[in-house]
């Protein structure tokens, strides 16, 4: 039995794919996420009725049940639900990306500082503030903020950011606390490296895999929270398409015109599922096991 591969192509990317794809569900997650991203980007070209994404009214076509011309049916204003769902992906993704872009640098930096300077005033200050934010029920906090400010996508993102950063601080705090005792960190300190170097070049790179995995999973959760906010009218405003508000609009018409709520709802589920599965795959990818 000849076990040696004919062309030994053990490339780095090949190895990475091998590790990632061992669990087929991760690949499913990747496919879902890629689908969502690309359909959102290419919405004007892949949807049948791009005009329906904004202000469009045609009562003559209202409340049609799903058919070939309208895969997900139409809503009370005659707008194609399928088109609007795809367009709604945009606000969902934007929310996920913007929130994480704000939250991750801030949360991670605070976590690094607090963990490295454990048991000093820096630690106490940062972690007590973190604790305060974490003790407020997240949705309440988001609701409170958005009701004070004007309800729109930007403020919804702001609200979610305010309540999301502490999770990264907590996560990185734990890792930094244990990493700072590793020999390689002590080596750098003993050599006289600056605190900046130790925090960002020695400790942080060892936290990245966990952070990235969390970010992937968080995309799904942030989108879900965003949908919850827009469900109560505190996100993307009409007539722009947003998954949560679409579910809310259609809720009044259940169970007769079920498609108006159900399909956007399923879309939310699909997105969260996709990011969750992808997150599992990412975490496998970073595992230290030899491929």
């Amino acid at each position, binding site marked *: 039995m000849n076990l040696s591969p004919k062309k030994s192509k053990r490339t780095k990317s090949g190895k990475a794919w091998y590790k990632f794809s061992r669990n087929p569900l991760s690949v499913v997650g990747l496919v879902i996420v890629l689908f969502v991203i690309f359909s959102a980007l290419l919405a004007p070209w892949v949807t049948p009725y791009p005009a329906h994404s904004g202000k469009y009214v045609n009562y003559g076509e209202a409340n049609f049940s799903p058919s070939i011309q309208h895969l997900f049916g139409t809503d009370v204003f005659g707008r194609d639900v399928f088109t609007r769902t795809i367009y709604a992906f945009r606000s969902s993704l934007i929310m996920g990306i913007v929130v994480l872009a704000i939250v991750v640098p801030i949360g991670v930096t605070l976590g690094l500082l607090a963990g490295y300077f454990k048991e000093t005033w820096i630690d106490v200050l940062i972690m007590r503030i973190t604790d305060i934010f974490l003790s407020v029920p997240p949705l309440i906090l988001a609701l409170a903020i958005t009701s004070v400010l004007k309800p729109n996508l930007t403020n919804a993102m702001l609200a979610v950011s305010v309540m999301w950063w502490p999770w990264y601080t907590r996560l990185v705090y734990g890792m930094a606390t244990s990493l700072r005792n590793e*020999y*390689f960190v002590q080596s750098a300190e*003993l050599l*006289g*490296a600056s605190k900046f*170097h130790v925090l960002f070049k020695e400790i942080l*790179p*060892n936290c990245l895999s966990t952070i990235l995995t969390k970010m992937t999973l968080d995309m799904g959760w942030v989108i879900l929270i965003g949908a919850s906010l827009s469900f109560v009218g505190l996100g993307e405003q009409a007539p722009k398409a947003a998954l949560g508000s679409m579910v809310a609009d259609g809720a009044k018409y259940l169970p007769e015109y079920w498609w108006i709520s159900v399909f956007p709802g399923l879309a939310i589920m699909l997105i969260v599922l996709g990011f969750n599965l992808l997150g599992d795959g990412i975490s496998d990818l970073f595992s230290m096991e030899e491929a």
Partner: protein
Amino acid sequence: MNAVLEVKKLKKYFSTTKGVVKAVNDVSFSITPGETLGLVGESGSGKSTVAYTVMGLYQPSGGQILFQGQDVAISHHKRKRILKKELQIVFQDPGSSLNPRQTIENILALPIRLHDRDYKKGIAEKVQEILSLVELPVEYMEKYPRSLGGGEKQMVAIARALATNPSLIVLDEPTSALDVSIQAKIIHKLIEIQQEKNLGYLFITHDLSLMRNIAHRVAIMYLGRIVETAPAQQFFETPYHPYTRMLISSIPVVSSEEEKLKPGKIPSMGEIPSPVNMPAGCVFHPRCVDRMPICDQEEPINFEIKPGHWVKCHLWSPNK
């Protein structure tokens, strides 16, 4: 010859919930350039604590640490920069002393960037120079620690220590986790480099056979104290302290010549007591086959039984 490192009555105590742990209690020794002082002992002896305190990872509770004449008995945060260049350490576990997320080049570039202002040739070239010093291929520069074997990782750690051209290197069990053939390679290299650069080594290990072949002088520790110090050959051929004799007789050896050298089989009794609850008098007395009445009353004093050979034991004290 002026000593590179002189440790005088060093103490390091830790306060724990169960009481005070006197990890290092009144330890003194010195190292001259080109010399290896071996510090041997079992778990709980305090040898690693000595190493870390000398490096400044711990603040001493008492005593002096004189490096090239200057007292540096403070935490490394407060030490002068020059010390971070002259005094280096190689840790025991090669797996965790190199940052798994950094390339070998980056790992070795750090000490150069910090201490060698003069790198006109470029850091990459300097890194190559150091790699060749420890006989590692230049291609390793782009690799990550996980692609290297344990011995190779330890070579990188040694290369890192050498990168700043230090005067003294502390080696804390550098080969304990490695196979014997790899250990041989590393020890051989360490001795070669020491002779080339006239380096002082504080070499810590529990492996007495290894110690015999690398140290010029050996000091054996038990529960925070040095109980015997001697030039290497004397230490092994004529050990005086009962603990030393017990330890040497327990070593598994591979040849009959070595068997003949071992003191008669002294079965080891008991285990090291809890460091919080140290025995009174001589700390070794509960396990000592040669115990005398005075041993649980008074702590013995250090006595120079032969030139350069010191023992801390009532058996050998002048006034019996």
